[in-house]
């Protein structure tokens, strides 16, 4: 029996869906076990150290897999990757799965991205002339001001809580939009300007944002009307009241409309008790029809080219539309997931979150903070030896901070 441990699709309905729908017509017996990321990391590390394995297959986010790959804890899956590429899985996507190494560490399983959701009540306060699908930061700020002035309450929210994905916002949305990069221009003038305007934005953001982990809740609770988050973390709200919300791309800055794909991957731990079984599961999960099933049931999108049928439930459809809008946006700046950071991914996030803390929350002078954090960042990149990734221009050796 193959044990499939996943940090994704944990919520009850989704886990049930995986067991009873997605894995149903797979012959081999699979046990689908879910785990929160912290425990996941500890367990994988423990099994690796002890050299005894119970887990045959893991499904987790790019960022969660990278530390394990760094200690080469995964069975290379290059042949599997070849087949899938043949079947039309985008090479760019597959390359993410190499995690900056020369072997295929994981097979992309599901995709998602981050979008913005707005309660329809908010729309009336949109600054005139603003097109919600072509929103700019200035408009967003203006919008927030309006809402606060009218409703007496800050109505924009970000997932800046301990479990929130705010770091991804800075890496994938804020920096690309304002500086066209992530690491290189960390302390550039553009960055400084960006932070200044983000401070303005923050003035109209609900202060509880530092407690939010999943934006669907404050949305549903009507605490906020406009939110940025991972689609999986908005789904609950959208799915439950599709006609109450609109989904639209994140705003654009001077350098364009940054966005970051999210990839969940499937990997086989070194010494997995049932490697063969795991492979079959991967093959099953990456079949177009399974991928469509997945999309329909849990709202993650295919990594192979598979068209969603028209009859998906409205919430999912809206999210899908939002994702398309983001990807198709003319000024879109794609920001890939960090690769080659190994197990320093967390600290990489920390650099951005600390910067945010100090500049925005504690109001320290922008320039100083950027300088100090920049040195941390370059030290980090140096130690990790991670070359630049898009949108930063490629580099020989570790990605430099200019």
């Amino acid at each position: 029996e193959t044990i499939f441990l996943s940090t994704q699709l944990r919520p009850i309905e989704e886990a049930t869906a995986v067991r009873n729908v997605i894995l149903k017509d797979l012959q081999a017996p699979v046990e689908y076990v879910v785990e929160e990321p912290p425990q996941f990391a500890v367990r994988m590390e423990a099994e690796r150290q002890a050299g005894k394995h119970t887990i045959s297959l893991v499904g987790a986010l790019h960022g969660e897999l990278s530390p394990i790959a760094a200690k080469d804890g995964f069975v290379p899956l290059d042949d599997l990757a070849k087949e899938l590429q043949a079947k039309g899985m985008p090479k760019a996507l597959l390359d993410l799965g190499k995690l900056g190494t020369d072997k295929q560490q994981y097979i992309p399983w599901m995709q998602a991205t981050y979008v913005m959701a707005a309660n329809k009540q908010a729309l009336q306060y949109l600054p005139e002339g603003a097109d919600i699908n072509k929103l700019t930061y200035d408009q967003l700020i203006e919008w927030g001001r309006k809402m606060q002035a009218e409703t007496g309450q800050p109505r924009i929210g970000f997932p800046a809580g301990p479990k929130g994905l705010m770091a991804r916002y800075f890496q994938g949305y804020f920096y690309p939009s304002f500086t066209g990069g992530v690491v290189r221009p960390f302390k550039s003038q553009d960055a400084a300007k960006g932070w200044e305007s983000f401070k303005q934005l923050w003035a109209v953001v609900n202060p509880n944002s530092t407690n939010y982990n999943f934006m669907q809740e404050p949305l549903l609770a009507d605490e906020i009307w406009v939110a940025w988050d991972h689609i999986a973390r908005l789904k609950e709200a959208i799915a439950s009241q599709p006609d109450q919300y609109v989904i639209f791309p994140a705003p654009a800055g001077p350098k364009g409309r940054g966005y970051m794909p999210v990839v969940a991957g499937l990997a086989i731990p070194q010494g997995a008790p049932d490697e063969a079984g795991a492979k079959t599961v991967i093959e099953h999960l990456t079949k177009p029809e399974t991928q469509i099933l997945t999309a329909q049931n849990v709202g993650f999108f295919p990594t192979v080219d598979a068209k969603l049928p028209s009859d998906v439930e409205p919430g999912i459809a809206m999210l899908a539309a939002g994702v398309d809008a983001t990807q198709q946006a003319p000024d879109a700046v794609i920001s890939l997931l960090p690769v080659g950071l190994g197990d320093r991914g967390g600290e990489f996030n920390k650099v951005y979150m600390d910067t945010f803390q100090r500049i925005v929350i504690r109001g320290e002078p922008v320039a100083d903070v950027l300088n100090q954090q920049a040195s941390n960042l370059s030290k980090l990149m140096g130690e990790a030896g991670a070359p630049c990734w898009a949108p930063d221009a490629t580099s020989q050796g570790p990605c430099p901070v200019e």
Partner: protein
Amino acid sequence: MSAGQPSSFGSARKLLLWSGIAALCAWVLIPIYLVALGAFGGRSGVYQWPKSILPTGVSFEPFLLFLKTEGVAGAFLNSVGAAAVTVVLSVLIGAPAGYALARYDFKGKGSFRLLVLLTRAFPLAILALPLTVSFIRIGLYDTVIGVGLVHTILALPFAALVTQGIFMGVPRELEEAAWVFGCSRPQAFFRIVAPLALPGLAATAVFAFVISWNEVFAASVLTVRNRTLTAYLLTVLAESPLHYRLAGGLLLILPSVIFIFAVRRYLFAIWGISSK
């Protein structure tokens, strides 16, 4: 035994007393009531504003969903198993230690007490990694026993310290009398000291049970298939909508509350201990 000062029971004082008690009961119960509201109120209930303090639309759907979730039954049994192991072990191992601390002066007493406390002073989750490694090696990984053992580590300080405190309150003469009348030390302990320290032992049991029942991190790292109910639900719940989590929370406290109810008599057993 009419505790307190029956003679001086001014009715005013009585009123004061009871209002105090009522207040404290309310302080404990109201939050729980509100959770129940949220849990039963369904999606609309939790997100409604302003919320009403009275139950609105009651729905058992989340609960039913939990109970229907596959593996819940098994997980429940695992939880009970782990808790049982914890209760038994922590009392069997902790009480003697507490007794030694209470009755004897011996070299290393202080350091022993510290050792016991260490286990509580150190955040378990940080230990989880090496702990799990060694568990995998000894083969306790993914077993109920294993979980019980880890939880015993957590419960031991309670067992030792609480029983120490209680044993100190048991008059020596009684024990001596037992010896004189033919008890070996263990016998004297079990027949005289233990019953008189019953509240302490019951408290230990309660703590052990509750600790084991509520512990998540170790429980989920150390198990794959044999999840305890708490670990099982909480992992599943973490990203579920609020009312599910409230329901889960409510569902999870029931067993411990029931357990405490079961042992409450011993928890507050009273003997008119009197020296002469």
